């Protein structure tokens, strides 16, 4: 009886419950005042800084080119526009089969090609051309990782190999043809048995001086080329990496241009190609496996910028040391690490923009009897989950911009620094991406599982970033190794540290005051020293902070600067809080660590009113986010 009474009371309350809008009971049973959507602007402060200026600072360059490319994609049906809740979204259809996804990816490439997107990507020269290319690739990445990788393999790996490993005869023959997609290239380095250890690959190439041809062979199953993007369906040519045997001597790894398909798409003789099969993501990329059965190629197909073979079969190289030769050889591959690091940051921007906008409109639980339920982002715990990640994304954006410029303006003297910086940032930024995607997925609850809401799908699409173009763990070890080597060498030389960002080590180690005040915690100087240690992760964290401070110092607009200072403090304190090394090595006392933690909570509350302005500065058009970032009630309504 108790239950019946209770139930009756509840029903009565529903029927009589009227609403703030004053509809009268004479309307009969009408829909009860629903949980309705209110836009994020209503719960945010007016933007304290100019969002366009922040965007320019973060994107850094070629803003109009980026917007032009966004425009191109939005206006074509090839990019899968969908109407949801009165807005158009363009997101690839991940429900298509693997074959369909591969085909539509090629069609999209053709569309972009027809509209002049790739003009100058291989034949263009100079700083401006390079920066424009990188900007456009970043925009493509925002739409679809598969599309970006397919294009990246053709232009940056295949095209890059021709540019940097090849010489004039290769440039003349292949660059324009590649830029116009008369040929489709791919990059055959990785094998079933060798990925990280490139020098251990087993494909073997010999020279036939009678016919002046190289003969490439896959001697055993573990030597088959694996994960070769573009090879399974479309590529006509490839750069094959192989051990080179001259006169019975193994001269190490070299690169050779080989045709694998003819103009009609038939696989060439003595070449076998199989599919790598369905993947957990990136099914728009046709990854293939390649076997070479004594394939003969002309001598000119050796990419000979570092070493060559004469017509009569003599091995020639200006670099005598094979280690050095390999190093010079591999240097151009940095571009992969750069583009991957940058794309990782954009992926976090998409997920944070969606998750934060959603949390500014989704409510759960009231704290007062008749009050509205509370917005997700008004919960300190929700703030604690998302806002530190937002701060890290800002920080990593600035480090990414630094890396980009370092790469584009590279000089021989900076090659070693570039290698260390690109390795550290590729690892750090891609790991940050996977962590952010997971957190954002959880922060969106069930909606995070819907493919069309993007965040969850991005996990599968971007997971590969932590292991391709260099396994993150191996890369971080390379960074540590470089740090140790530099330390030892500097000590031996008895000279101060320079380069590799170790200059701060020349000063005496600072003592952290045991009583940390708010202003101390937020001062850049304090923050700079505290992260000054050595080895992989610490190196990355400190490098990222340094690039952040530099970017902040270059800003003259006061509101922008103040906001950046706030975010920078969040970045540092969260880094101090999360990395146990600070406690372990005694750089932070237990009391100080507690103070840091409390300060983070304070910062969350200070940043919360500006969360919308911060994600609005990402410059990602609404169409490239997803329905839960906008009116998700309308998007899910029956009439839709």
């Amino acid at each position: 009886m108790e239950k019946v009474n209770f139930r009756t009371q509840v029903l009565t309350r529903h029927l009589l419950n009227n609403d703030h809008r004053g509809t009268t009971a004479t309307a009969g049973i009408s829909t009860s005042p629903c949980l309705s959507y209110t836009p994020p602007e209503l719960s945010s402060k007016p933007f304290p800084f100019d969002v366009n200026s922040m965007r320019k600072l973060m994107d850094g360059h070629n803003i109009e080119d980026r917007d032009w490319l966004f425009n191109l994609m939005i206006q074509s049906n090839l990019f899968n526009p969908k109407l949801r809740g009165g807005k158009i979204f363009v997101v690839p259809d991940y429900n298509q089969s693997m074959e369909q996804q591969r085909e539509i990816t090629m069609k999209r490439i053709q569309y972009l090609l027809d509209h002049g997107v790739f003009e100058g990507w291989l034949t263009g020269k100079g700083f401006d051309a390079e920066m424009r290319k990188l900007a456009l690739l970043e925009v493509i990445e925002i739409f679809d990782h598969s599309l970006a990788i397919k294009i990246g393999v053709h232009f940056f790996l295949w095209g890059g190999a021709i540019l940097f490993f090849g010489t004039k005869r290769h440039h003349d023959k292949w660059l324009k043809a590649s830029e116009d997609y008369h040929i489709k290239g791919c990059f055959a380095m990785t094998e079933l048995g060798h990925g990280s250890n490139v020098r251990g690959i087993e494909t073997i190439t010999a020279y036939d001086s009678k016919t002046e041809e190289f003969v490439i062979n896959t001697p055993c199953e573990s030597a088959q080329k694996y994960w070769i993007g573009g090879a399974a369906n479309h590529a006509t040519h490839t750069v094959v990496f192989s051990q080179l045997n001259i006169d019975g001597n193994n001269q190490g790894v070299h690169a050779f241009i080989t045709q694998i398909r003819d103009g009609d798409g038939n696989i060439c003789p003595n070449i076998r190609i199989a599919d790598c099969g369905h993947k957990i993501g990136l099914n728009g990329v046709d990854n293939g496996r390649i076997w070479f059965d004594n394939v003969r190629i002309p001598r000119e197909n050796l990419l000979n910028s570092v070493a060559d073979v004469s017509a009569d079969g003599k091995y020639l190289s200006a670099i005598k040391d094979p280690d050095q030769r390999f190093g010079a050889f591999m240097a151009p591959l940095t571009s992969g690490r750069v583009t991957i690091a940058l794309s990782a940051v954009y992926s976090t921007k998409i997920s944070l923009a969606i998750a934060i906008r959603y949390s500014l409109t989704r409510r759960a639980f009231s704290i007062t009897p008749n009050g509205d339920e509370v917005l997700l982002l008004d919960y300190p715990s929700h703030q604690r989950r998302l806002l530190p990640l937002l701060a890290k994304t800002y920080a990593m954006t600035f480090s990414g911009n630094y890396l980009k410029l370092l790469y584009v303006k590279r000089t021989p003297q900076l090659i070693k620094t570039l290698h260390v910086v690109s390795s550290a940032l590729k690892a750090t930024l891609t790991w940050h991406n996977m962590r952010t995607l997971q957190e954002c997925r959880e922060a969106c609850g069930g909606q995070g599982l819907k493919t069309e809401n993007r965040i969850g799908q991005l996990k599968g699409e971007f997971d590969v970033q932590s292991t391709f173009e260099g396994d993150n763990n191996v890369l971080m070890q390379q960074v540590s190794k470089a740090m140790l080597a530099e330390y030892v060498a500097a000590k031996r030389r008895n000279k101060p540290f320079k380069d590799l960002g170790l200059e701060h080590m020349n000063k005496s180690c600072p003592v952290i005051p045991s009583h940390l005040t708010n202003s101390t915690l937020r001062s850049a100087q304090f923050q700079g020293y505290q992260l000054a240690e050595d080895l992989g992760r610490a190196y990355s964290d400190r490098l990222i902070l340094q690039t952040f401070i530099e970017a902040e110092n270059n800003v003259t607009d006061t509101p922008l600067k103040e906001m950046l200072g706030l975010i920078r403090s969040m970045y540092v304190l969260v880094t101090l809080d999360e990395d146990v090394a600070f406690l372990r090595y005694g750089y932070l006392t237990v009391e100080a660590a507690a103070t840091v933690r409390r300060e983070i909570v304070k910062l969350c509350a200070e940043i919360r009113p500006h969360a919308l302005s911060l994600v609005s500065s990402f410059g990602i058009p609404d169409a490239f986010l997803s329905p839960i970032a906008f009116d998700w009630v309308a998007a899910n309504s029956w009439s839709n």
Partner: protein
Amino acid sequence: MKVLVEEKSSVRIFTLNRPKQLNALSFAMVSGLLKLFTSCAEDSSVKLIILKGRGRAFCAGGDVAAVVRDISQGNWRLGAEYFRKEYTLNYLMATYNKPQVSLLDGIVMGGGAGASMHGRFRVATENSLFAMPETALGLFPDVGASYFLSRLPGFFGEYVGLTGARLDGAEMLACGIATHFVRSERLTLFEEALCKASPSDPLVISSIINEFSEVPNLKEKSSYHKLNIINKCFSRRTIEEIIAALEREGVQRKDDWISFSIQSLKKASPTSLKLSLRSIREGRLQGIGKCLVREFRMVCHVLRGEVSKDFTEGCRAILLDKDKNPKWEPSKIELVSDEMIDRCFSKVKDDGWEDLQLPVRSDLASYAIAKL
């Protein structure tokens, strides 16, 4: 009274009543419409708004001549206030909580598009004539045109906005500018049917309109048949590239439409062309509110004549002296720099000037958002 008001059950019919000036929107008319729409929003006895024009036009545009007069008297701020009010009206219409049906039986250009395009239903007739002719005047397609033009299929919006192309009723329906097409002789019956039913639900309104509407055939020479060329050329990154692409097409095939389009571009103000292109491209990526805020900044810069005085010169040549021979300055597209255009998108550095303030609407029903 320049805006007539009729009440027919839960329908309010607003008629623009300035037929001698083709219903050009004066400051008073814009204020009047703003008051009417605002009060009807709160009035629960109003379910539907019908907007139409008296005479042979729906509305030929904003009262640009008055604005030019203000500028010549050194009073650009007064002109700016006109646009501030007009864009506020546009935003109110775009986010309105009740359906608006506009009967576009005649000329609908410039400000007239602003007063109708943001409404849910736009009914064209065989008399309709649509255009956004601002680039010929030294202005740029405003009134939220960067929002609605950019949402037309492909790059048709760039074509319409840059060349000032004229579209008839059939073309308006084909590209989405009009949601329906009804023969003019059936309009009276149609209005009566709407008023009798007084529906608030857009689906019901739609079904009523469908009883009277048809899908007319496009003319053979319609520009809408040229979408392939339009998409190829008007998707190019810059004005220079657009013209070059059109000229390449013109070499390959003899087509009056191509040469006419090139001519329209070459006759327009070079500064206007660059402003308009960037406006449409940015508008494609923004919601209606952001578009209007941005357009307001742009129009203020145009009124101040900082970067170019083409607006005054265009109005003189086309509207006042009517010699149709404006002397643009800069005179060539290559002479219009990126910095000049950038300036027009920034805030105005003037004491007391404020960005367009638009209310954040909490009850944005999804159908209230302009659909194209």
